[in-house]
């Protein structure tokens, strides 16, 4: 179990400013529908949703670190656990689990039983190639990259070599309820740990 800090995802979610999920769900749906109209190609929509998610993921990290008291994760495994168990709960109000670790700990699955993005959604036949929730894959990718990055700023007392990596991942859909599966499963594969430059450069 990851060192999550003193607060569980549920407790954090209870203290978050919350709104009706309907507004979120319908806004996301209307955005996907508009993207389909404007971009026409389903693949292109998948790409844009992923990009939007990535931008959101890297931006939500500050709030995530501030409110979760997550101070350090030593490796990919812990970071993935924290994002799934604390991150999903505190923002979407749903719990995700992490399973299917491979032997060398560089590949796992994040599984969601339930997900507010898809309330009311039924995919039309014309959109079978659409990964409707693809924004989530981008969010996971962005968040993993930034949690590993920014934790060093949150805890400057920890030797920086522990943090000078950025977790670059590839996220792909394995299961999707909208396509008839029993859950949402995203495979997260660590591509490489990119060495980052020391955050405080000489000329600063």
């Amino acid at each position: 179990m990851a060192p999550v800090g003193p607060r569980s995802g549920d407790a954090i979610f209870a203290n978050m400013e919350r709104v009706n999920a309907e507004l979120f769900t319908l806004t996301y749906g209307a955005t996907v529908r508009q993207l389909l109209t404007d971009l026409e190609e389903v693949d292109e929509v998948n790409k844009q949703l992923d990009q939007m998610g990535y931008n959101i993921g890297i931006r939500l990290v500050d709030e995530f670190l501030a409110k979760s008291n997550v101070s350090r994760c030593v490796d990919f495994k812990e970071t993935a656990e924290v994002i799934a168990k604390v991150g999903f709960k505190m923002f979407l109000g749903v719990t995700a689990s992490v399973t299917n670790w491979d032997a060398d700990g560089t590949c796992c699955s994040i599984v969601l039983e339930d997900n507010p993005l898809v309330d009311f959604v039924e995919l039309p036949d014309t959109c079978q190639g659409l990964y409707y929730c693809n924004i989530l894959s981008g969010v996971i990718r962005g968040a993993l990259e930034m949690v590993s990055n920014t934790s060093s700023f949150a805890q400057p007392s920890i030797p920086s070599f522990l943090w000078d990596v950025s977790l670059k991942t590839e996220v792909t859909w394995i299961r999707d309820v909208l396509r008839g599966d029993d859950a949402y499963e995203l495979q997260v594969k660590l591509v490489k740990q990119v060495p980052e430059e020391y955050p405080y450069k000489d000329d600063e």
Partner: protein
Amino acid sequence: MIVCVAVVGHQNNPLYIQSFTEADDALKLHHIVHCSLDVVDERVNNPKKSGPTLNETFLGLLYPTENYKVYGYLTNTKVKFIIVATDLDVRDADVRNVDIALLRCNNASCLSPFFRRFHAAYVDAVSNPFHVPGKKITSTTFAERVSTIVKSFGLSSAG
């Protein structure tokens, strides 16, 4: 027993119509639904006739036919829900005691909760981002929910 359910858009465009009867009288039921739309319009445009229930969504009994009773419901967004029910329940109920008769939903106000459930199912169906307003409802989830609601009505009234 509910034999037909219809959802009709604000320009009297059919959004959904489904009959629940063994008999081959779909056409006849469609005709009954069609005729009921005028009754709804008349009701809504003549406040005097509708009296205190002026703006209530549930319109009550629209009109009886020889074999059926037709009930209506009009949302704020001018979507009409029509239910065609058989009259059998009432006659059956006559031979039983009053409590059972009430349980059997033989009066109009008992239908109100059923309309609300239809309405809730409709609202969820049109919340699908891929639903185009004014177009027919093709959602299978909606069809299943309507069918469940109709069956549950059958249960409570068939004793």
